[in-house]
Structure formats: structure tokens, C-alpha cells
């Protein structure tokens, strides 16, 4: 219990903690030495040289691995007790004032409330997926309906996410907070923008973090069209730097869908850029091609002159795409991984493209592909997928 008190005191005294980590006991000595060397005065109240269980400096919190289990157990036990008391007590006060249709928080109810918040905070830093603890906070905060409490929840979950990037519960908690704030407070757009930045920061540290990007995709439904366009522009640079991160392209696709759903008369224009050789890009290209094809399909209205122009557009597009296949037919040496990868991914892309092309264009495409020697490349690069050739009836 004493360990728990220590932890909670530190958390109370330093509300600006932005990073939490586990420290091996032996590292405490190193850290103490570094600190005493760099600071002249020992008047820093947060720093206890003799403490080998918790380390708190510069708004960082370190917890010794040695005490992790006991303090976790203590926090859990304290939280469960507090929850029990809080629930019983709030039931009583509801019953008392049922006829007046209001709940008057008694002072002891408020103290149980603060116990629940205090213990759940400590507990969640140690065991971040404990849904019951997050729920308890939702219960308290939803009864109070005060913006500072909501922003506190964002702060706590951000802290948890700083070391536990994939915590499903933490991300879910943030979504709940945003849903609660949406429509009530005018700075929603600001909050959404900040939220998006947070994801980007976390994605920087933990590659291909599905949950982080999933959260960002969820935010899109709260964005204005301007925000979506801005995000699309911004993520283009990020995608350029993190070309293998499929999740970023998934986000861009979500934004594009959102933008096209919010169309205001003008047609969206999709850049089909020059991509480097990475699978994520080939997959992304599938999505873009699909959008283009569907776009052409939906703009035709059956009148012959329009179909001809659409046919021309598709033809030009296909001829350009086929140029991407040229390098593969001249590859002799499959030993170089890059060339092999290029051949495999581009071949799969074209097979997929054939599947997507509307029926009446298939025959022309098949002719072009036979000329481009696609079948041989397929057999050479990924023979285990040869069956797809038959599936497509080529």
C-alpha cells in the first residue's frame, strides 16, 4: 500500500508527466549519478536520491520492474474497493432524491469519486487494458460533464499511449471522449486536428500501428471537407517518407472516400504518381485504378458518344499502365530481390486489373497482355499463383 501511495503522490504532484517507462533496478544507480552530476542544487523536491522504486524528473516517470507486480496488485485492490463504495453510495443518494429527480452528491460521495479517479489512474498506467477501470472513469466524468475533466481523460490516455501504442482500450476511451465533446463545445475541429497530430506522432514511433491509423480513419467522419483536403496534402509527404507503411495509404484512401462523398459538383482528381517499387504502393495503385475505373463507369450514361470517350480514356490509361510491365519482361536474373519483387507485384497488379475491368474491355486488354508476355512472367515469378490465370479465364 505504501508503494501505491508513493506512486499516487508523484502523479498528483506532477500533472505534466508525459512519459512513463519501466526501469531495471540497476539503472536507478546510473540515473542518480547522472542527475547529481548535472545539477548543483539538491533542492529539487521531486527527486529523491535514495529512491530505487520510482524515478521522476523532467516530467518523466520511471517505475522499477522489481515492484511492478506488488504495486499493480495494490492498485487493483484499492480501485476495486473504491469502486464498490462509490457504486453503493451513489445508489443510496439516487434513492434518497428520486422524487426530486436530481442527484445531490454528498461530500462522502465526492470523496469516493476522487478515490476512484486516483486509483484508476495509477492502475491504468500499470495495466492499461483494464476496461473496468476506463469504464469507471467514464462513469464519473459523464456524471460531471465538465470540459476540463474530458481533457484530463485525453491527457491520461495519451500518456498510456506514449508507451503502449496499441492499447485498444486507450484508443477506444479517446473516441468516447470525442463523441461526448462533439456538438457540445465549439473547439471540436481543433481537438480533431490535435488528435490527428497525436496519431502521426505515435505512428512515427511505432510503425504500421493499425490501431493508431484506425483511430485516425475514425476521425475522418468528424472532419470538414477542408480538413480532409488538408490532411490528404499533409499525409502525402509522410507517405513519401514511409513508403512501406500500408496504414498511411489506408488512411489516404479513407480521406479520398470522404472527400468524394462530400463532393460539391466538381470532380475529384486523383494523382497517379510515379511510385517506387514497394508492395504497399502497388496495392495503393489498385485502389486508385479502381477509383478511376469506377469514376469512368459512373460518368457514362449509355449514350454512344459518351461511351466512346470513356473507352478512349480507359484505353489510354491501360496503355500507360502496361508500360510499367515492360521492365519485367526483360528481367533475366531473378536473384536480385528488388527486381523479383517488382516483377511479382506488378504481375499481381495487372491480373487484378483484368479482374476489375468491365467485361467489354477485357478482350482488348487480353490481347495487349499476351503481347506483353504476362503469362510467362507470372509462371517465372510466382508459379504458386498460376491458378489465378485460369480463374480469370485468360
Amino acid at each position, binding site marked *: 500500500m505504501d508503494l501505491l501511495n508513493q506512486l499516487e503522490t508523484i502523479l498528483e504532484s506532477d500533472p505534466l508527466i508525459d512519459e512513463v517507462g519501466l526501469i531495471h533496478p540497476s539503472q536507478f544507480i546510473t540515473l542518480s549519478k547522472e542527475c547529481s552530476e548535472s545539477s548543483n542544487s539538491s533542492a529539487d523536491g521531486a527527486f529523491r536520491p535514495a529512491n530505487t522504486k520510482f524515478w521522476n524528473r523532467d516530467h518523466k516517470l520511471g517505475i522499477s520492474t522489481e515492484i*511492478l*507486480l506488488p504495486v*499493480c*496488485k495494490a492498485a*487493483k485492490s484499492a480501485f*476495486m474497493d473504491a469502486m464498490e463504495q462509490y457504486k453503493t453510495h451513489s445508489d443510496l443518494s439516487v434513492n434518497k432524491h428520486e422524487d426530486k429527480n436530481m442527484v445531490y452528491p454528498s461530500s462522502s460521495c465526492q470523496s469516493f469519486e476522487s478515490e476512484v479517479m486516483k486509483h484508476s489512474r495509477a492502475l491504468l498506467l*500499470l*495495466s492499461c*487494458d*483494464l*476496461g*473496468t477501470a476506463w*469504464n469507471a472513469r*467514464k462513469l464519473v466524468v459523464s456524471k460531471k460533464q465538465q470540459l476540463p475533466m474530458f481533457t484530463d481523460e485525453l491527457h491520461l490516455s495519451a500518456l498510456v499511449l506514449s508507451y503502449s501504442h496499441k492499447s485498444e482500450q486507450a484508443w*477506444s476511451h479517446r*473516441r*468516447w471522449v470525442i*463523441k461526448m465533446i462533439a456538438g457540445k463545445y465549439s473547439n471540436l475541429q481543433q481537438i480533431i486536428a490535435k488528435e490527428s497530430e497525436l496519431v502521426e506522432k505515435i505512428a512515427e514511433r511505432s510503425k*504500421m500501428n*493499425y490501431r493508431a491509423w*484506425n483511430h485516425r480513419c475514425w476521425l475522418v467522419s468528424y472532419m470538414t471537407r477542408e480538413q480532409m483536403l488538408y490532411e490528404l496534402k499533409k499525409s502525402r509527404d509522410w507517405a513519401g517518407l514511409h513508403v*512501406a*507503411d*500500408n496504414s498511411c495509404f*489506408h488512411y489516404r*484512401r479513407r480521406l479520398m472516400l470522404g472527400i468524394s462523398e462530400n463532393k460539391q459538383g466538381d470532380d475529384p482528381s486523383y494523382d497517379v504518381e510515379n511510385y517506387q517499387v514497394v*508492395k*504497399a504502393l502497388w*496495392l495503393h495503385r*489498385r*485502389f486508385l485504378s479502381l477509383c478511376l475505373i469506377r469514376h469512368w463507369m459512373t460518368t457514362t450514361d449509355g449514350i454512344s458518344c459518351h461511351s466512346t470517350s470513356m473507352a478512349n480514356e480507359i484505353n489510354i490509361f491501360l496503355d500507360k499502365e502496361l508500360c510499367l510491365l515492360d521492365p519485367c519482361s526483360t528481367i533475366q536474373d531473378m536473384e536480385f530481390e528488388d527486381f523479383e519483387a517488382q516483377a511479382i507485384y506488378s504481375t*499481381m497488379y495487372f491480373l*487484378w486489373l483484368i*479482374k476489375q475491368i468491365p467485361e467489354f474491355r477485357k478482350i482488348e486488354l487480353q490481347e495487349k497482355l499476351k503481347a506483353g508476355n504476362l503469362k510467362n512472367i507470372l509462371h517465372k515469378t510466382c508459379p*504458386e*499463383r498460376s*491458378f*489465378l490465370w485460369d*480463374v480469370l479465364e485468360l
Partner: protein
Amino acid sequence: MAELAVDKHVKYILAVEKNKDSFESVVMDHLRMNGAYWGLTALDLLGKLDSVNVDEVISWILKCQHESGGFSGNIGHDPHILYTLSAVQVLALFNKLDVLDIDKVATYITGLQNEDGSFSGDMWGEVDTRFSYIAICCLSILCCLGKINVEKAVSYILSCKNLDGGFGCTPGVFCCVGALALTGSLHYVDKDLLGWWLCERQVKSGGLNGRPEKLPDVCYSWWVLSSLIMIDRVHWIDKEKLVKFILDCQDVENGGISDRPDDAVDVYHTYFGVAGLSLLNYPGLKAIDPAYALPVDVVNRIFFSG
């Protein structure tokens, strides 16, 4: 090629169930109900469900049920649809569904369906297609699927674009395919397109990954494989290579299966490895149903007796 170390895995699972004092078990004890499902289903597939004390398990499960009808992950925790399914599945394994007040459980689940057909996980409202699958699977086992709005549930799932040739995540794909299978709605799926995406999950080592550029993981052996079986495209992957990959993920000394070779084992991956092998018809294992994720004889018992 290595063989499946059945006895070691049984020993491992039984030991995990008893160990309540490590940091891992303290941090994971809020999802003990899921752990029970993974461990016990794996035991049943290995033919060793009788190694467990049925009455103890059932009495613990019932202590996890709340007034709302939903089940929590452990005693004293909040209820959630995830644990409700696991509880029902475990009771089905033991052929003890009759200890349930089925209406009560059904009420909890139907209460979680939203206007647009989607499902929330609990009273706090988080929506996810996984929860759609869970609701449909659970009510299906309890033989009262008609209590939800099935049409709306299906149209919500189809609107999620998880099945458009794979722009989502594979557990999500499994949940969508499973839900559609259980509601007789698989004809809405372009099976070639989806099968394509799924078979591309197989990497050189024979293992399956969840998304492009990610490492293979034994748990995807379940999600990708069962999806492929449900849409009748399992011949699009190299089954032998996958069997070898799963067997390489075993700890043959201490029992248990890990996410990939030489990593630490856990009950979660042990279940998915054994279930995956069952789907691949590995000899000596009971058959498992890809949609219900329960042994076939358990599913038959639910629908074809009484």
C-alpha cells in the same frame, strides 16, 4: 517434419489455468473468460477436455454474469459482448447451455444493436464489426438469432468495405465473413476477389500475415484460413507449408505455441495454432467449425438434438 506435441500442450494449458500469481496473469485476468475459451477449446480439439473440473468452471462462469445478462471477463469486472460470447461458447463445449437464462443473455445482446444495424461492445457504445460477428454467433448458438434485426446487421457489415479485396484487417475480414456465413448471406461476397487478398497473406515461410509487409503470425492461420474455407477458396494456399509453419511455432520442450518460431508461447496462440491445424485436417485432432469456432460435434449437438 516436426509433429504436434499433444501431451506437452495439454500440460501447458492446464498449468496456465492454475497460475494466478505472475505479472502476466494479473495483467490479463480481466480477460480470463477469453482465456478459458482458448484453453478449453484447444483441449477439446486435442481430445482432452475431460482433464478439467467442469463444475468449477461453470460455477465461476455464472459468477461472471451481470444483472444486464452480459458476462464479464472475470469476477468483479464490467460485462462486455466479447466475454459474453466466450462464456456461451465454453458452456456449449460442456453441453451445459441449459444452465443459462437464454432470454436474459439475448436481451443483453439485442440491447447492443444500434439504429444502423451495427453493434456496440457494451453500454459505452464503441462500435466495431467484430461485435456484429459476436452478436450473431452468440445468438445463433442460443438458437434465437431472430431476436436481432438480421437484415440491418447484414447491410451494416456489407457497408464496411472490409470485403472489397482487403482494405481492412484480417480479424475484421474473418468477422465479416463469419457473420455473413452465419446469416446465410455469403452470396453478397465477391469470393474470387476476397480469396485473392487472403491467399496473398501467405509468405515464403508458409506462414500467414495479417496485412502486407507484416510478419507471419500463427493467429492469422485461423482468421485467414477459416475465411478461405467459408468462401471455398482454401485450395488457393499451400496447406502443407502452413502446417509446417505452425508446427515450427511449438515449444516442444515446455508445451504451448507462439506467434512465430522461437518466440514465447501463450494460450492465445496455442489455441489458434491447434485450431488452424484442425482446419488443415491434421491427423488426431477433432474437426472445428470455421464460422462458430467450436468443434463440429459441439455445433451438431446444438442444432441436431433435442
